[in-house]
């Protein structure tokens, strides 16, 4: 285990705050805080749904800017070249829409209401994510 980087308290607190935002969006507006749906369904052009989605995305961007200003160490740059970033971005965008959710929508919202679909999706993307890291780091020896 990697004891040097293990941050159970900070990660738990961060999880509580993410959960708070998710619960608030549900209680105040009855909307699911799944980032895939919030961004991806902008393309579906559902009448009346765009303003809050865009506002949520603006909140994400603004929150990133502010937390980075206060605590730059909370962020690090993605490794990988231009090609890797493009391929990974395309896979994440297409895959999350096809599978109807990501870490937030399935992993958090869906699992918390014990949706069998979300539990299955979460197991699959975790397992494939682990397999991908294994192949990249330990089979190819690239990193």
């Amino acid at each position: 285990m990697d004891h040097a980087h293990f941050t159970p308290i900070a990660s738990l607190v961060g999880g509580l705050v993410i959960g708070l935002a998710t619960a608030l969006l549900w209680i105040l507006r009855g909307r699911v805080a799944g980032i895939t749906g919030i961004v991806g369904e902008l393309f579906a052009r559902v009448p009346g749904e765009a303003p809050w989605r865009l506002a949520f995305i603006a909140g994400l961007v603004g929150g990133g800017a502010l937390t980075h200003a206060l605590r730059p160490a909370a962020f690090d740059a993605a490794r990988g070249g231009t090609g890797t970033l493009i391929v990974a971005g395309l896979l994440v965008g297409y895959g999350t829409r096809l599978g109807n959710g990501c870490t937030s929508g399935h992993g958090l919202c869906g699992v918390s209401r014990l949706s069998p679909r979300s539990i299955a999706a979460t197991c699959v993307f975790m397992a494939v994510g682990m397999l991908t890291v294994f192949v990249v780091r330990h089979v190819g020896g690239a990193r």
Partner: protein
Amino acid sequence: MKPLVGLVCGFVFAVGLALSGMSQPSKVLGFLDVAGGAWDPSLAFVMLGGIAVVALGRRLAPTKPLFDRAYPVLRRHGIDRRLILGAAIFGAGWGLVGYCPGPAIVSLGAGMPGALLFCASMVMGMAVFQVSDL
């Protein structure tokens, strides 16, 4: 009022992601690297904390949303090929770089190098899905 709720929730969500370590691709990859001998299980605690609060929030939720007419009926389809295939494609992209959609957008706001290219590609992937899906 309604967009303001979105703005505040997005902002709080971003702060949570930054606190949790999800905004560090190296940490995400350290979590996914279960076989490397230096596994960092921190991000399991993000899930734990998040799931607990969301489950509690749903229990405490009033009979209708405070600023809306009704809760949506969340569909319960079966587990199908699209779900599994989509999750697998997403997992491959996540494992390649360490960004899932939320942290990628938050990192874009933080001005991290690579985040813009990733987010642009991600939105492109979503657009491809939209035009190709029937």
